[in-house]
């Protein structure tokens, strides 16, 4: 019971954090067809900016400011880099964002060094919200989850209930038509890219304090975020939410599952033989917990390539 509750809580919060980062990515892909490899780098830049600004303006302002700055960075990237490459096709845009990942990582190493930096949760947020079976549950985790839900709500409302949202959604489906009707589609693209980047920056600013802030952050998170986007369906916000929660929960629960093929075979009496075989037979689920999301992605690509909630075809 204890294991279930704690894993559930942890899984949901981790999933919500993943959502905050992947929401931006799926938004950008849905709108523009650009798979932004540098998205996880925006996450990293958000963390480092918040770390630097924190020394001058305090934590909350630092987080908000770094979100805005990363959003601006996104706008600059779109306006001056991606737009030029747009006419050459998606492959070139992909390569550009791929190159950006390296440039951003090396710039960060240049300014902040190779090792992790001292970016920590501020004291006024560093307390336990409640106790779960005699373990403290940190308030900061709830804060991250809460911000993520808020962001989801705001974006959903923005897209479905406002005029701007209608224009943005029109620009996805029929960009030429929307442009013909007089809407400034390039501006919409720029704004969407900026907002997507800002979301990643916000996630970085918040998560960087709780986890670690180091030059490999982008690599660590970047792969999982892609898995989320592929599983959820490219372009679908709801899909990203479902996929993030799914992956968060799976990663959390798998850690406590000590089953292996050998234990399953033990049910039919072949347990000892399997134990002796070793290798794949005795591989416990818990020791590959972080790899299960990739297996899930493989499954989705085989069965339903457009993702859980992506558009068919």
């Amino acid at each position: 019971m204890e294991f279930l509750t704690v894993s559930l809580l942890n899984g949901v919060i981790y999933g919500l954090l993943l959502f905050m980062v992947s929401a931006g990515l799926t938004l950008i892909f849905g709108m523009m067809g650009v798979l932004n490899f540098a998205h996880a780098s925006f996450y990293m830049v958000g963390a480092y900016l918040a770390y630097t600004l924190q020394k001058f303006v305090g934590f909350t302002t630092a987080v908000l400011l770094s979100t805005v700055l990363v959003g601006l960075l996104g706008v600059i990237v779109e306006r001056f880099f991606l737009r030029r490459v747009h006419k050459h096709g998606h492959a070139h845009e992909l390569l550009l964002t791929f190159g950006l990942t390296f440039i951003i990582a090396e710039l960060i190493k240049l300014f902040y060094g190779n090792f992790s930096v001292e970016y920590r949760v501020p004291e006024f947020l560093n307390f336990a919200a409640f106790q779960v079976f005699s373990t403290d549950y940190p308030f900061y985790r709830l804060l991250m989850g809460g911000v993520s839900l808020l962001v989801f709500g705001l974006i959903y409302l923005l897209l479905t209930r406002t005029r701007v949202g209608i224009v943005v959604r029109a620009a996805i489906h029929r960009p030429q038509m929307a442009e013909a009707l007089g809407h400034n589609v390039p501006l919409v693209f720029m704004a969407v890219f900026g907002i997507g980047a800002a979301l990643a920056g916000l996630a970085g600013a918040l998560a960087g304090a709780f986890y670690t802030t180091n030059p490999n952050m982008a690599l660590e998170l970047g792969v999982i975020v892609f898995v989320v986007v592929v599983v959820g369906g490219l372009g679908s916000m709801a899909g990203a939410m479902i996929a993030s929660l799914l992956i968060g929960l799976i990663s959390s629960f798998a850690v406590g599952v000590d089953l292996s093929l050998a234990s399953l075979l033990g049910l039919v009496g072949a347990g000892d033989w399997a134990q002796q075989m070793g290798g794949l037979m005795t591989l416990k689920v818990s020791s590959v917990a972080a790899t299960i999301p990739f297996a899930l992605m493989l499954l989705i690509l085989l069965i339903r390539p457009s993702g859980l909630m992506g558009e068919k075809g």
Partner: protein
Amino acid sequence: MHTKTTLRLLTLGTTLFAGIACADPLKVALVETLSGPSAATGQMFRAATRFQIERLNAEGGWNGEPIQLLEFDSQGTPAGASEKLKAAIGSGAQMIVQGASSVAAGQITEDVRKYNLRNKGKEVVFLNVGGEALELTGSKCHFYHFRFNGNAPIRVKTLVAAMKEAGTLGSNVYSMNQNYSWGLDMEKSITENATAGGYQLVGKSLHDTQKVQDFSPYIARIQASGAQTVLTGNWGNDLLLLMKASRAAGLKLRFGTAFLDQPGNLANAGDVALGHYVSHPFNIEAAGEQGEKFASEYQAKTGHLPAYIEPQTVFALQLVGNVLKKLPAEDGRLNTRSFALALEKASDRNPLGDVRMRAEDHQLLMPFVVSVVSKEARYKVDGTDMGFVPIKSFSADEAAAPVQDACRMQRPE
């Protein structure tokens, strides 16, 4: 016409003569992770290697020539290491230095062994200054591999002994490790030391290396097991996130680690790191006057105090240098077979104590220190107010782990 031919003859003549006068300088190749996620560690190995090679050259080099250090970036992958090893051997390197990854070390040692089998008389020596997986002096041992650093049994044995003496080991211990050769070795050693340490192993976990961001599920398991101490071989983010997650959950766990002294750990962990233990091959505070001298020399050259894996690399190359000094050239080149035969019997004294190479498995027997993170340390780390205070030193014999049965070394005739 005349001048052109004379010029041609002259150049031909001088090039013929040029070959005779030069001896072959000794080429040492560093095949290391200089880019990618573990680049920071690889760069430290490089800094330490450069430091000691420069010192050896200041003392005269080898055979009247300065030792040449060639650097190759393996990018942290076994495939990269294998490729760059070929390039290194092709460039004429006779010694390979590597340390940042047991996985890469495993690849390099196998490649070197196979190369040596096919190229008798032109063997290459692998100086392993950082790979701690047991198999390197176990099932993968061979005559031309030498290990100059610790391994899992040494780390665990010293940690357990020191923590037990300090009274902080407790009776319930949890083993948390990464799921690869090194982590598996650590788990095995922690299990085997239970009687000696007087503790009960209440649980063990293996997790994917450098992939887990959220350690709270693991902390939940540790809590459920009732452990008071966690012994772990985790490094980098895996260690940091584990410690932070345990603090976030409000657990009062004691950590016994092998790599807490990696730069950046204390800065990132902050007060979370206080009171935890690390077993490492060097601590300036424990090495007396000699240690201080070495530390200030190192800082003068590189700009920072020797930390983490740098001291063991420097001392390794110091031992190699000692052996080289007594070895004359044969046909202008280094005879690596004679070198290896001499190195496996070599001994030296580093600031912490006596070291000697064990000929049976080519594992260096070296002193170890167990330290605790405290604000009382003389040498502060990472710009914080904390450092590592040594609490127990072990001589080479006290720290040593026995030769493994799996090592069947084929000696040259």
